[in-house]
């Protein structure tokens, strides 16, 4: 009985339509998918990502260099007066650095200048070169912000770059805290 039932079911199933026409023509979408060139990633990183990477790399390398050299006894220590000047602190036409940040920065710079005097010429040169690169980046970002003051990506990048500059000085000056937030601009 079961076999007869299965036979009838099989016979009925074999009569079901195997080809059903779609309600819409699928070809246009298929054609688009197979003929459109596959988007290729640019070989070049976005400009801002490159700038950020450079800044972070410089910051990290200068910090590591300082830490590596910190434990070595310098062969000869010369007491030199640092010629340190502030990096220009503007965020385009519509933004300025906040007072909290400037106060923190002034404190860090004071300690940094004191500690810088104790470094060997080689150490000083390394730190100052790192800071120079960071400040050039700050100038470049500031210039870009002059053209596009409301660009949040640039603002973030500038904030991170200032933070990097502060970190380098903090490591040299032995300052343990620096505070900067987006509200500072």
């Amino acid at each position, binding site marked *: 009985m079961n076999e007869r039932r299965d036979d009838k079911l099989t016979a009925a199933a074999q009569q079901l339509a195997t080809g*059903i026409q*779609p309600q819409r023509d699928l070809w246009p979408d298929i054609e688009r998918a197979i003929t459109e060139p596959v988007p290729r990633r640019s070989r070049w990183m976005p400009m801002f990502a490159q700038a950020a990477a450079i800044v972070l790399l410089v910051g990290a390398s200068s910090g590591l260099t300082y830490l590596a050299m910190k434990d070595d006894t310098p062969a000869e220590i010369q007491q030199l007066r640092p010629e340190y000047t502030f990096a220009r602190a503007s965020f385009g036409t519509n933004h300025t650095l906040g007072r909290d940040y400037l106060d923190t920065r002034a404190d860090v710079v004071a300690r940094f200048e004191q500690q810088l005097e104790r470094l060997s010429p080689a150490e000083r040169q390394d730190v100052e070169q790192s800071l120079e690169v960071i400040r050039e980046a700050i100038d470049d970002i500031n210039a870009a912000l002059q053209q596009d003051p409301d660009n949040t990506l640039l603002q973030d990048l500038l904030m991170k770059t200032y933070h990097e500059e502060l970190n380098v000085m903090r490591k040299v000056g032995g300052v343990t805290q620096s505070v900067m937030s987006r509200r500072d601009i």
Partner: protein
Amino acid sequence: MAALLTVETGDNTAGMVSRTAIPMRDEAALIARAQSGDTRAFEALYREHVDRVYGLCLRMTGNVGEAEDCAQEAFIQAWKKLARFRGDSAFGTWMHRIAVNAVLGRIRKSKREQDRIQVAAERTTSPASIGDSGDLRDLSDAIDRLPEGARHVFVLNAVYGYSHQESSDMLGIAVGTTKAQLHRARRLLAQQLKEQGFEA
């Protein structure tokens, strides 16, 4: 052996396409042209096979939108893999294999299967029954309400006539499992149709 192929052209705004016969083409020649990058030849292959590919997708998914997506995906994948098609099986069988993969991949990616089962249980008519007539619509609706595994095996084996070995290859399961699922599908279908007053 030459096969008469048709090309569907014209206005698709109303969901209808007209069929215009084109000169006879040998499917192997079309495949060779498509393999060399001829999209027109591939379109001709699409026109020839879309109904069976879409039908399979619709019977396996029970959902018009998903069936359309799966059929599209199957043809896109076929285009990408066309260079590897050596004619060991019929082109239609090869397309069916890709379509089954598209359906299974979609089911794995989405969690809509449970929703589909719920919808299928609530509705009275299967979208796939549109191609059927009379009492066959009841069978089509009953198939649509089958559990996923049983439905897939029944569709491939009983509706499309694939062997247990072919079905198991397509679905990536053991032959014994397809036999068990087919038996389960038959039992459930007979039960459903009996409840509806039909003597299967």
